[in-house]
């Protein structure tokens, strides 16, 4: 299946399990994508493979950034009827709390969808969406 077919099929069926065909990273990292009334919801089951500090068992900060970036891209896929994937121009990640080995979720909100550039904010949490462990703001090139 081509990336175009994978994106179209996911949008039409509202079943995003096939997104990994377009973005292999999603499947490799074990990220599950579902749609919620607020937008796309990314879920990562608790796994020790995402630990960045073996002494504190904290999740890897770079990986949390990667998870947030994925949430932003997936939200843009939902909102824009495009046959190509948005490309990150830049991202800023703020780390608010340490991440534990626990189920982790992320969601994103498109602040501005321009013709060429989109601005997106994403948030990542474990127990309480009101207590995010990290947030991202980023610009993405829509081609």
């Amino acid at each position, binding site marked *: 299946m081509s990336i175009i077919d994978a994106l179209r099929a996911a949008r039409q069926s509202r079943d995003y399990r096939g997104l990994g065909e377009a973005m292999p990273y999603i499947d490799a990292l074990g990220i599950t994508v579902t749609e919620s009334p607020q937008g796309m919801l990314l879920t990562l089951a608790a796994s020790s493979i995402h630990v960045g500090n073996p002494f504190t068992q904290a999740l890897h900060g770079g990986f949390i950034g990667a998870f947030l970036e994925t949430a932003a891209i997936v939200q843009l896929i939902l909102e824009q009827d495009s046959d190509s994937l948005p490309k*990150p121009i830049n991202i800023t990640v703020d780390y608010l709390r340490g991440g534990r080995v626990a189920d982790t979720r992320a969601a994103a909100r498109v602040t501005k969808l321009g013709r060429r550039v989109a601005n997106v904010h994403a948030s990542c949490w474990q127990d309480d969406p009101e207590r995010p462990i990290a947030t991202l703001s980023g610009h993405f090139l829509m081609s």
Partner: protein
Amino acid sequence: MTDYTFLDALREQLARPENQSPHNRFLGIEVVHLEHARAVLRVPYAARLAGNATNGVLHGGVITTVIDSAGGWSVIAALGRRINIATLDLRIDYLKPATPGMAVTAAAHCYKVTRNVCFVRALAYHADRDDPIANCAASFMIKDTTLVQEEATQA
């Protein structure tokens, strides 16, 4: 303990994959160079880590992860002690797509250490630092200063 012997021990330790963090092991990240306040790490190419199946370009998050790791080790190398740190924030500019099939190197420099926060600049590139894939500015929090003193007295 001088920086030299600390860095020597750290280099030996990190040369063994089992001493890498689980996530870095998962991505196959290795430490290729450590010196005072500087760290160079490399992540091999893997098609399963692509962000786009059509062109096979690595997901930006893989670049973020290797840069964050390089930043963290540059901070440890600057502090001269293996203490508990955490990324406070990072900003990454993606300058060009990584070439599929090629490993990505991240070189980080911890250019300022303060009591609580350490500041880092980093670049990601294939072979030529003057043709970077990504540029990064980051800061790291020193999480536990008492741990610093405990380790210092042990050493």
